């Protein structure tokens, strides 16, 4: 895996040679800013459905092993 990743990075390094002075970054091709919805409450996913696919449900919550 390490060799593969080094090989891929070797090809990617081609972008290091480009002259990018004064070129701004593109994060997104659609010119959208602050898309907001009306501040109106609406129903969310019911809890039993949200928990339906979980392997371990504890007290109506997702169960996980201890954290330490």
């Amino acid at each position, binding site marked *: *895996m390490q060799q*593969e*990743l080094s*090989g*891929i*990075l070797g*090809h*990617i*390094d*081609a*972008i*290091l040679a*480009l002259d*990018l002075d004064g*070129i*701004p*970054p*593109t*994060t*997104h*091709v*659609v010119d*959208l800013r602050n*898309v907001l*919805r009306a501040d109106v409450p609406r129903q969310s*996913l019911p809890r039993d*459905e*949200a928990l*339906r*696919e*979980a*392997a*371990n449900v504890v007290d109506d919550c*997702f169960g*996980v*092993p*201890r*954290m*330490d």
Partner: protein
Amino acid sequence: MGLRDLTATEQVAALAAGETSSLELVEAHLSAVEADDVHAFLAIDADGARARARAIDALPERPPLAGVPIGIKDALSTRDIVTTSGSRMLEGYRPVYTATCVQRLEDAGAIVLGKTNMDEFAMGSSTENSAYGNTLNPWDLDRVPGGSSGGSAASVAQRQVPWSLGSDTGGSIRQPAALCGIVGMKPTYGAISRYGLIAFASSLDQVGPLARTVADAALLLRHMVGRDPMDSTSLDWPGDIDVPSATDLQGMRVGVVEELMGEGVEPGVRLAVESALRVAEGLGATIVPVSLPSTLSGLATYYVLAPAECSSNLARFDGIRYGHPLPADNLLDQYEVTRGDLFGPEVKRRIMLGTFALASGYYDQYYGRAQRVRTLIVREFAEAFAEVDLLASPTSPTVAFPLGDRTADPYAMYLADVCTIPVSLAGLPAISIPCGLSDGLPVGLQLAAPAFAENRLLAAAHALEGVLEFDTRPPGLAT
């Protein structure tokens, strides 16, 4: 000619004329889906499809796509139908909601027969990265169908379904469509809601149609586009998607991207594409060479940006809220064993590449620079489209390659998308249509257009298709 030989448009007409029923159509296609000679399907919803067909047949008024079967890429969530995105991480996962684009097609009467095979989390160009076995190319069972929407492409070529949905991040609709001899289209970024599409690289992912004709692709697209409150990047669609009827290219200026016709493109592919361009000229188009030098950096740019976005998107997969966590004594160990065991090698490779590109100290060098190269690519396309109406290139530099040929060399696999990636980075619409054969295998012609010029793109592709008269039936497929 059997029911499976009808295009989707012909099936709509046959249903409207009372010559067949939805149930008959569903049964005819289900038999091929269940036989699945090319392993195109991961899940089949036979009972659900039959029930829907009966319900639609009983309706007094038929919705526009009433009763026409469809296959859905396994990256799209379908309520109660197992959706894995080709990964063991989601083995047995049944979504609690349906993707907006699928819901819109179902509302229009389409009937989902099942979920199609794909590279794990849409990362790959051959469908060999699926955790559930590879799909075969109907044109040659020893070759790949392309990817990542390989199951969607093979199922349409094999006439298991008249059309299907795929998703395209760097070429995952167009490249398999080209390798399987069918039509595949990636619309303008934002045209179709991504709600319910399992995310790979969110600034690039788009859903789109695969079909045997351009008109079918247009019909499917028409029922999916438009704003969805559940995806803030989805856009209000200006006007309608027209089902194309153009028979010439009078007044159309088509630019041939020089950088995508040179080194690395197989001679047979170049010949077929050049011959299609002469056909375009015969239809009245003016063909001019166009240079887009930054497209040569497209592949490198993509393999920084897409892994960076995927490393963030795939952080959600831990087996806790869905999927299957592996046993461990504490939470961190559980994350590690679950993700370590259930992600395949290509997914791990990309998560690591992306994490590296975003790491403090490397961010400016890789992610920051790649975003700026993306700007150059966007600008070059915009400058080109000030001069021409469409851009043309091969869809894939090669025809379908043998199974196993590139699995040991990730970069060789990445090169399969060298012609499709630049358009994706610019967020533009593009279509691949079959334009001929090389060594008996299909070659795809890629046409790209400015954002929102889908109707122009579809009209030109339709006019060309009419003269190219490519026979989409794979030679081995029984009549």
